[in-house]
């Protein structure tokens, strides 16, 4: 049975209330950190743990923390990114709904480590009911003396607030989030300066994902070395995976970062296999932005090795034959799904969510959406396929923030692996409106 560090008590009745959470060992990390550790020692444990950002980028959290500038007399901020909106991802919602105090506890311990005296949780506007779940938990934490002035008599002060968004995927990008938190449109900032130097109200700021901050709790409780023992290589600890699509058991699962993809997909402990006895066609393993994998590259790599749910193994083969762990948004497609339609769907999403600042993204995402739309509706030309690849290539790397890349990668990957399905749409304009293409063939490789 896999160890659960975050969701261990998720099903305990009343765990969303302070008393029950505390009874199950809650807030121990705050006691330990504030009473027995210096802030730098907490940062050191997080470094030792090997924890990587759980929002999607996978950047080492301890390193991110150590970049935080500490000029005298200037406030520092910790901002939690709870603007979860990567299609296929709903793990932070689950964590905040079920165990809000875990996030509050993580915020206190992490704020102490960073020397922040005011911290914010920025939550997406659509999760409005969770705003109230969190505010209730925060009020309970204030009452119990975990927030406010002179916490546990240590002289450390912390205020924690929740800020609500208004519906904008782009605000999950950390500098857009900071703009939004300042009460503006969510337009990403040009970097440098990075938030660690100039972030919220031009003060040094760390922005971390909900799950990242929650993971600080077991890291401080058990020590970074203990956390690093779980997983493989540079993929340490546990990860929340949001499983969706055509599977028997969609939902949020906490896995140790060493589970084979095949086990995750087919075992009853996790996804429980493809629904209705259908065959697997494809999988997007890390949220809509990461490259889609055709059925023959999901459970094994191009080299024929078993693929694991780790940062490295999912990326094995680069973009040619691999993908990314990303946010852990694991979307499964059965043989009845149309890859062109799905690619069009994702392109529409990115075109809608582009903030419009950079021309390649603003124009390119809409252009891809239009071309994919006509292709899906039987009006595509053979030259459209290369046109799509070309537009995607011209967006990638040419924008202020990674939304451009996120829009380009799914299109490039779909064409890379499913070109015959795109060609079929052009060659069979009537048929493609009536039925789906089915499985693509695995290319024959000569060893």
């Amino acid at each position, binding site marked *: 049975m896999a160890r659960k560090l975050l969701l261990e008590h998720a099903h305990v009745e009343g765990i969303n209330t302070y008393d029950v959470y505390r009874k199950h060992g809650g807030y121990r990390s705050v006691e330990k950190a504030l009473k027995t550790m210096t802030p730098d020692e907490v940062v050191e444990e997080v470094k030792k743990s090997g924890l990587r950002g759980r929002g999607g980028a996978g950047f080492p959290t301890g390193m991110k923390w150590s970049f935080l500038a500490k000029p005298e007399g200037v406030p520092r901020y910790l901002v939690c990114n709870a603007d979860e*909106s990567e299609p296929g991802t709903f793990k932070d919602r689950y964590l905040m709904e079920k165990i809000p105090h875990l996030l509050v506890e993580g915020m206190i311990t992490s704020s102490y480590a960073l020397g922040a005296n005011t911290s914010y949780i920025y939550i997406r506007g*659509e999760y409005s*009911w969770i705003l*109230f779940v969190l505010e209730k938990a925060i009020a309970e934490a204030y009452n119990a003396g975990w927030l406010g002035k002179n916490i546990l008599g240590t002289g450390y002060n912390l205020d924690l607030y929740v800020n609500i968004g*208004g*519906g904008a995927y782009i605000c999950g990008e950390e500098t857009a989030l900071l703009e939004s938190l300042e009460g503006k449109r969510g337009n990403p900032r040009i970097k440098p300066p990075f938030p660690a130097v100039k972030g919220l109200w031009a003060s040094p700021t760390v922005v971390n994902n909900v799950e990242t901050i929650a993971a600080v709790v077991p890291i401080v409780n058990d020590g970074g070395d203990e956390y690093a023992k779980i997983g493989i290589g540079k993929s340490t600890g546990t990860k929340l995976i949001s499983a969706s699509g055509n599977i028997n058991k969609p939902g949020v699962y906490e896995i140790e970062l060493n589970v084979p993809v095949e086990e995750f997909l087919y075992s009853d402990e996790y996804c429980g296999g493809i629904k209705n006895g259908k065959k697997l066609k494809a999988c997007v393993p890390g949220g*809509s932005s990461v490259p889609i994998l055709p059925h023959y590259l999901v459970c094994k790599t191009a080299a024929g090795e078993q693929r694991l749910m780790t940062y490295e193994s999912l990326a094995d083969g680069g973009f040619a034959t691999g993908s990314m762990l990303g946010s852990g948004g694991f979307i499964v497609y059965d043989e009845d799904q149309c890859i062109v339609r799905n690619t069009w769907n994702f392109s529409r999403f990115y075109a809608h969510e582009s903030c419009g600042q950079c021309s390649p993204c603003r124009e390119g995402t809409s252009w891809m959406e239009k071309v994919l739309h006509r292709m899906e509706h039987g009006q595509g030309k053979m030259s459209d396929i290369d046109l799509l690849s070309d537009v995607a290539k011209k967006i990638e790397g040419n924008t202020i923030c990674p939304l451009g890349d996120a829009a380009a990668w799914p299109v490039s990957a779909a064409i890379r692996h499913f070109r015959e399905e795109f060609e079929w749409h052009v060659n069979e304009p009537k048929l493609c409106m009536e039925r789906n293409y089915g499985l693509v063939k695995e290319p024959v490789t000569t060893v």
Partner: protein
Amino acid sequence: MHAVVENGTPFKYSDAARTEVLGLLKKYPEGKGKSAILRALHIAQEENSGWLSVAAMDHVAEVLSITPIEVYEVASFYSMFNLAPVGKYVLEFCQTGPCAIEGAERIITYTKQKLGIGKNETTPDGLFTIKQVECLGACGYAPMMQVGEFYHEHLNEAKIDQFIEDCRSGKINKGTWKMH
């Protein structure tokens, strides 16, 4: 992105809402009260029958001591703010990938036919508006829609029928910002 065009009727926060909005300012450093804008707009929208008129936005600007243009440019950026009148129940269907492959398109079409309206349209009785939105973070519980504060998940035709009936008979509480 939407154009700010509708004028609407005069708007002022209720006393309770005004107190709530002014209370938000203490979360931010001196002079940074603009940070309260999104929540202030959600509350204004709630009190203005589900949409933001120019009058409502001007009032938010006044309460937050910022200029009206600062409010317009924010309200027009975020998808949750309606800049034209909407029905009492705004049905916001997720149409993104994971919902789409689990039947969102079928459910959206069914609801449109049942209510006799299209995307961004309101029924003549002023009860229902249909919006199609992007990923709401309910991918494992697809297909789904958001109405007010609540998520309605694992949708099927029977659930839509029941929901609409319950709205018409006044049984459904759409969920508001003021209930907490």
